[in-house]
Structures are given as C-alpha cells and as structure tokens.
C-alpha cells in the first residue's frame, strides 16, 4: 500500500471559470476528470461516502450550455465541490456518518447547497465525517475512517475529515464542512489545506443535520485562501429559513483579502503556547509570526485568561444541545428502525441502541445527565456562564488587536487508533479551537509549515464577529510568506 496519495496541482476556481468562459474547457469534462480521480484514489482514502453523478453532470451540462451561448458565467461555474454528509441534498443519501440514517434520502436541499448550485458549482458527492460530526479524528464514522492523504496511516482530523482529505487529495476543488468545536479548522490543519470557521450566523444552517445548534457553523475548505474566500462569499448571507442567520451585509472578501497587513495589530495569546504544545508546531507558528512582523504587522502578546476552561465548558454545552437535537432519531420518520420491537417505547430504545455508535451514545448520555433534574445549574448553567467569560476575553482582546494567531491543534496529525480509546485525550485535541466556537467569532486554519515527518502544520487566525475580511487578509499574508 502506498504511504501517500500522488499529488496533483490543484485547480483554482478562477482558472476553471475563465477556461469555461473562453471555451478552452467543458464543465462536463472537468467533472468527469474528478470522478475518474475519485474512482482511482477514494478507495484508499474513504473521503466520499456517495456520489451524485447524475445531478452533477446535469449541472455541468447546464453550465456548458450557458458558456456556449456566450452567457456570463457565475463565480463557481463548473467548479467541482464536495459536501460533508451532514448537509442535505434532495435525493442524495445523507448519513451524517451514522447507521441510524442509512438509506435516508432527504426531501429538500440545504440553503448552502442551493446557493452553491446557483453560483454554478458542480456538487460531486457527499463526504465522510465522524458520526453526527462528533469527533476529532474521523474514526467515529459508521462507514470507516478517512485516511490522511499526506500520510495514510494517520487521521485526517475530524469531524470534517472527508472534506479536508478530498481537497488535499485533489478529489474536489473546494468542499463544505461544518465546525462545532474545531471540525473544519483541525482537519484543514492536519491535511494541509485552508478551512474557514465563519462567524456564527454568517452562513445558514438550514439543511444541516444539527449537532449543537448554538455552536454549529457551515464553512468552506479549499487549497488557497482566495478560493476559500470565494466560496464563503457565495454561501454567506441572510436566510429566512434560519432564525439565527444574520442580517449583516456580506462584504467583498476578495477585496478585503488583497489589502496589505502592514500596520495591523496581531495578538498572540500566551495561553495557547503553554505545556502540551508540540515543539514543531510551536516553531512553525512562531516562524509565521516572524514573517508577518517582517511584512509590517505589529505582533503583540495578549492574554485570554479563561482559555483552559473552554474544553470542559464546551463538552457540557455541546453534549447538552446534542442530547436534545438527537432525540429526533427514533425510527419513526427516517432511517433505521429496529425490526423486533412490539411497542413504541421499545422501538425507540432498540432503534437508537442499534443505530448510534459509541461516541454518540457517550455524548447523548453526558448531555442528558448535565441537563437532568438536580444537575442543570451545577453543569449546564455553569458552563454557559463560563462561555460568557471566554467570550468576554475575546471581546476585550479585539479592543486592542485586529486579529489573533494561535496553533490550530497541539500536534500534527496523529496515527489512526492512537487516541481512539481515551475520550479525554481526544477532547483535549480541540483545546485551541473550542474557544472561538463558544465565542461565536470567526477564524481560519491556514497551512504554515511542515513537520520533519512531512506532516502539515496549520496556523489559526481568529477575528472578531463578522471580521472574516481581516482574517482572510492575514491568512493571505501567511500564504504569501510561505511562497516567497
């Protein structure tokens, strides 16, 4: 078995659109090229769970007709995009990585799916993930783990492991993932791609199979900051079908991205560089800071004093919300129903017992416990109060700095199986990402170096609420600094 996937030079979004516009290529051929590559490489990586060839090729043909008629092509015309399997597409299987949804064909499209197709994107298929997006390694998928294309014996990160691996392996130009506690940023870091955590409310959650509703975000992964910013520009904006969707106007992210970083104040929180941070990750992020300083950015030490309380607060809030959201999987309306139950309540129990995997049960039980009578104040309310303190840390910091830089994860990608039996060790892999999740702020994971073993290392850039423009601006500077 090869240890890594043959690398390909990724297509850029604009390269595809302009090629189609000029008549130099056809969207159908681009889609077929990606399907051929998926057929060849996916068995080793397990990034795609299902392919939607018919719908994808219909969309590609429509784009080709538009191009041959001389029409102006939309921004994502002909761009092959993969969708994490927690987002629904009408008539295409949606499993959320769970047995309990095996065979489910959603009767509607997620808002982000509609927006991507309206912008010309060709949606290739659905991407593997940890069951109900619960995990940091993609080992919790009922359909087998995803392997990291950069090192096949290692995890791609999670829960959007398929979304990150597909971009890294050239099996999609961009993908949509979801991030509740780090599930876009950490796999992006492990696979060496760019992953965006949009501000809470920036992107509609309509059609997202909910994990923790006050934390769940949908965001893009891509090979470059420019492509990630382009996709965010398409999917962002108010949606009447999501009551938490923001009315805040969507800026021109590419224009924001192009601005220089000279004069920007960038905060470096001491709490993110303490014990437990791998020396190579630390060195890569510190080198990044030095290069940003050389381009004229002002690097400032800051403090986010409640950082170490974020993982426990997160695991209380996220599991509490999950226990409520996952109550809907009961064998009545969709998915798996246990065949041998004679009463309704037995059918609920047996269907859920047979349909959910171990990590999902663990989180449902924990979430039910912290919400149960007598424990609500001690756990759930306490965690929500700590959430306020963590958010306040960020609001205070953004009075002094324009952006914050930290590592994404304490280590590069770990080996498959390494942490599978230790939930606390797995939860602590989220230590640098859950803070922004709780606060609702935006961020990005951008490649900033490679370990001696050849494993990608990412830097996390955080911005204030609706500060995506500044985040892209700094991320683009990090990207440029690696190329020069």
């Amino acid at each position, binding site marked *: 078995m090869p240890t890594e996937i043959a690398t390909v030079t990724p297509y850029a979004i604009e390269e595809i659109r302009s090629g189609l516009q000029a008549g130099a290529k056809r969207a159908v051929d681009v889609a077929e090229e990606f399907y051929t590559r998926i057929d060849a490489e996916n068995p080793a990586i397990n990034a795609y769970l299902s392919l939607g060839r018919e719908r994808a090729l219909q969309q590609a043909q429509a784009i080709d007709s538009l191009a041959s008629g001389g029409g102006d092509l939309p921004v994502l015309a002909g761009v092959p995009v993969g969708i994490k399997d927690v987002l629904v597409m009408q008539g295409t299987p949606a499993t959320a990585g769970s047995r309990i949804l095996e065979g489910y064909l959603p009767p509607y499209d997620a808002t982000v799916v509609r927006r991507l197709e309206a912008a010309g994107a060709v949606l290739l298929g659905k991407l593997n993930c940890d069951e109900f997006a619960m995990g940091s390694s993609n080992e919790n998928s009922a359909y087998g783990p995803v392997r990291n294309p950069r090192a096949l014996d290692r995890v791609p990160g999670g829960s959007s492991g398929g979304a990150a691996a597909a971009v890294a392996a050239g099996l999609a130009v961009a993908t949509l993932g979801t991030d509740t506690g780090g599930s876009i940023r950490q796999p992006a870091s492990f696979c060496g791609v760019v992953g965006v955590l949009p501000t809470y409310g920036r992107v509609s959650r309509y059609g997202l199979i909910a994990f923790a509703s006050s934390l769940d975000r949908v965001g893009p992964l891509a090979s470059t900051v420019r492509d990630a910013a382009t996709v965010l520009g398409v999917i962002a904006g108010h949606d009447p079908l999501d009551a938490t969707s923001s009315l805040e106007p969507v800026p021109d992210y590419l224009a924001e991205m192009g601005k220089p970083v000279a004069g920007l104040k960038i905060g470096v929180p001491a709490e993110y560089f303490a014990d437990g941070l791998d020396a190579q990750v630390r060195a890569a992020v510190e080198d990044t800071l030095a290069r940003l300083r050389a381009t004229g950015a002002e690097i400032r030490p800051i403090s986010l004093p409640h950082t170490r*309380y974020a993982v426990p607060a997160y695991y209380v809030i996220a599991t509490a919300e999950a226990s409520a959201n996952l109550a809907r999987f009961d064998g009545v309306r969709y998915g798996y129903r246990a065949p041998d139950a004679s009463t309704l309540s037995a059918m609920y129990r047996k269907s859920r017992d047979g349909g959910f995997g171990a990590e999902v049960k663990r989180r449902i*039980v924990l979430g039910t416990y912290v919400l149960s009578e007598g424990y609500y104040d001690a756990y759930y309310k306490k965690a929500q109060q700590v959430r306020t303190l963590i958010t306040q840390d960020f609001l205070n910091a953004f009075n002094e700095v324009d952006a914050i830089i930290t590592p994404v994860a304490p280590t590069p990608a770990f080996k498959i199986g390494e942490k599978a039996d230790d939930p606390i060790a797995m939860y602590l892999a989220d230590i640098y990402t859950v803070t922004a999740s709780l606060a609702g702020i935006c961020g990005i994971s951008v490649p900033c170096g490679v370990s001696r073993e050849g494993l990608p290392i990412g830097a996390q850039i955080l911005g204030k609420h609706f500060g995506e423009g500044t985040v892209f601006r700094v991320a683009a500077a990090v990207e440029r600094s690696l190329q020069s």
Partner: protein
Amino acid sequence: MSQTTQLERVTPADLRRVAGLASLELSVDEEHSLLRDLNAVLDHVAQLNELDTSSAAAMAQVSEVLGNDSDPTAALRTDVVVPSLDRERVLASAPDSDGIFFKVPKVIER
C-alpha cells in the same frame, strides 16, 4: 451551590436513569465503559468550579453578546403560509407508512 462543593460521581443507577431519559438501551458492556468515561469527563468538567461566575450571565446564544438583540424580531420572516415539504417525498424515507401517516408499533403498553 458553593464553589467548594464536590460534584457527585455517577453511579450505575444514575446511568440507567439517564439512559432511560434518553431512550437508550445499554448493554452491560456499554454500561461499564460509559460509567468509566462519564466519571472521567465529569471529573475534568469539575474544574469549572474554580471560577467565580456569580456575576456572569448565562450565554445561550451568540447574538446575546453582540448587543443586537434590541429588536429580536428583525431576523424573523413574515408569518405567511408557504407550501410545506412534499408528503410523498417525505414518506418515501419512512420505515413504515400508509401513504398518509407514519406508522409505529403499539403506543399504549399493557
């Protein structure tokens, strides 16, 4: 609750009660590993009690800290009737249906 109170650890009876609330049927093996994991996670969570949160509001939604809750109806759509999901498509994914309703096993147990 005072800041120094030790949080109780989960007993097997607690676990069975909570599993019942969550409509989960746990095997003996699952009970054993869940009990161990739950107590380990709750021990980790107990460090939240180091913090004095008496003056911190409970945050349930991000919008609460953005100060834009002055008009909570701003993001709501107007209350007009629109077509719902197509019944046939919805029922197509149901484990059991009569074409109009979802069918389930006996509800009243005796």
